[in-house]
């Protein structure tokens, strides 16, 4: 710390100014890089290393035996339910991302282009508040709406559309997807809005003056420019949907168990740590790949505005 206070770019004797400047710059850099790096090393890299160690071993009843076998990794891709559950989680995650974006877009569009300044703040707040509301309670709310004694069935019976409560609304992949979309739509709205807000008015004016119809302006100018926002939101909503374990338990059935539920079962019920560790490492690898793809796509679609 005391060293830093003495830092200036004034050249000193016996050392060229440039060399000294470089040395100081390096020290300033380490000052910011080192603390987070150390933290990530201890609380992420070492734990992932532990996972790797466990994943190569095996469990006999409750005793862990270290080993060097890739068997658990092979099992992730060849033995049911693992691969199937992984694909199901990816499917529900993808549904979550797509529907959150579709539902979120109009509201983001309204916020960016139509809301009067005074209303804007208020509407923005209205988007944030449901996101703050307890996650569990939001999932539970859908249970009370979709259940056999729920509000939807009561209303449908009251309107004379059906005679007996329908069971098709709850405890299936539909209800899980609906709940996930509901919970994560605010993320999509905020992320798309942030991108739409950056589109300069002059760009839209120019297109309109050049004779484009409003639909053409949307299709050829506004929508392409909003893609990075859609992607950024989709990466988050996909990941949150993929890794969710609450919705499958509260509103899902046996057919909608997802990867996080399987991992928890492996730890608690089956006590198969090596298998859980192997799944964990596969998901970590997929996550790193997703980040790289998202980073690439963002640069591919991002225009300077």
């Amino acid at each position, binding site marked *: 710390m005391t060293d830093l206070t003495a830092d200036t770019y004034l050249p000193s004797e016996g050392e060229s100014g440039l060399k000294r400047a470089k040395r100081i710059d390096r020290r300033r850099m380490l000052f910011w890089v080192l603390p987070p790096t150390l933290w990530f090393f201890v609380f992420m890299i070492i734990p992932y290393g532990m996972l790797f160690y466990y994943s190569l071993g095996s469990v006999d009843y409750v005793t862990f035996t270290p080993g060097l076998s890739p068997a658990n990794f092979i099992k992730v891709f060849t033995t049911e339910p693992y691969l199937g559950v992984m694909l199901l989680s990816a499917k529900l995650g993808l549904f979550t991302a797509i529907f959150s974006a579709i539902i979120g877009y109009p509201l983001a*569009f309204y916020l960016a282009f*139509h809301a009067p300044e005074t209303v804007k703040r208020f509407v923005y707040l209205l988007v944030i508040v449901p996101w703050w509301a307890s996650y569990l*309670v*939001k999932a539970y709310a859908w249970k009370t709406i979709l259940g056999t004694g729920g509000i939807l069935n009561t209303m449908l019976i009251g309107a004379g559309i059906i005679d007996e409560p329908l069971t098709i609304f709850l405890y299936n992949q539909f209800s899980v997807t609906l709940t996930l979309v509901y919970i994560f739509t605010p993320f999509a709205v905020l992320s798309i809005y942030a991108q739409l807000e950056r589109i300069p008015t002059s760009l839209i004016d120019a297109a*309109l003056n050049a004779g484009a119809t409003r639909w053409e302006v949307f299709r050829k100018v506004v929508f392409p420019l909003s893609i990075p926002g859609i992607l950024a939101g989709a990466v988050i909503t996909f990941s949150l949907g993929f890794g969710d374990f609450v919705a499958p338990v509260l509103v899902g059935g046996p057919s909608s168990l997802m990867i*996080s539920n399987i991992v928890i079962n492996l730890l608690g019920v089956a006590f198969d740590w090596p298998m*859980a560790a192997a*799944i*964990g490492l596969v998901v970590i690898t997929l996550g790193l790949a997703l*980040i790289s793809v998202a980073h690439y796509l963002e640069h591919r679609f991002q225009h300077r505005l």
Partner: protein
Amino acid sequence: MRAFGNKALVTILGLAVLFFLYAPLFTMAVFSFNDSNYTGLPFNGFTLEWYAKVFANEQIIRSFGASVFVAVGVVILSVTFGLPAAIALDRYDFPGKAWFRRIVMLPIVLPGVITGVALLSFYVAIGLNLSLYTIMLGQGTALICITATEVFARLQQLGRSTSEAAVNLGANELEVFWKVTLPNIKSALLGAMLIAFSISFDEIAVTYLLTGRENTLPMTLWSMLRREATPEVNAIATLVVVLSVVLIVLGFAISRSRNALADTGEAAL
């Protein structure tokens, strides 16, 4: 003119989305006042019984306190390590920067359960007993990315010219930070703290695996919902929403800047 498109259509669609977002919350709020053991129709009459029960339930009050405690610790961790990470990513090129960035971002896309499993095996290996602190360390590690991405996005907008000018004028690193960098990123930082707090306050997956004897509020709610859900849960939910509205409004009043509003939730992937 900024507004384009069919105003009526856009407004109606926007309102429909807001209805979708609020109908379930509104349902919970209404039933929290319903004089019935069962969450659902019919509406039997108005009561404050469920609220009284919440405030009389010692377990709920205690887990609320635990949640606040954990969330405050998580915010501190997120800022302490996320802020330097953002500055490092913005200002310097260093060996391994691409991997540094990936590791910072990883918890955004990684299921909480996986973070939990990894940390749990680490804790078991070093013989750390599970407690509120182990939850705090776990959530904190997962939420460093919030401060890092929010602040990084702001720093990118600002550009490096002002901090470089300060350096050339002889300011040391801490002076640059306090007098140039911090004032410019204040609202982004506040936004990040609000987000980290709210995610931590609501976090289940990491907590589920790292919890010791003391539970956070979501864990208490989770066990209530799995056993037998009473309208007490609705009352807690309504209280949490009201509390968050107060917190958000307070946050904006403190920052007094429209930017904080625009930053909250802005993803920097």
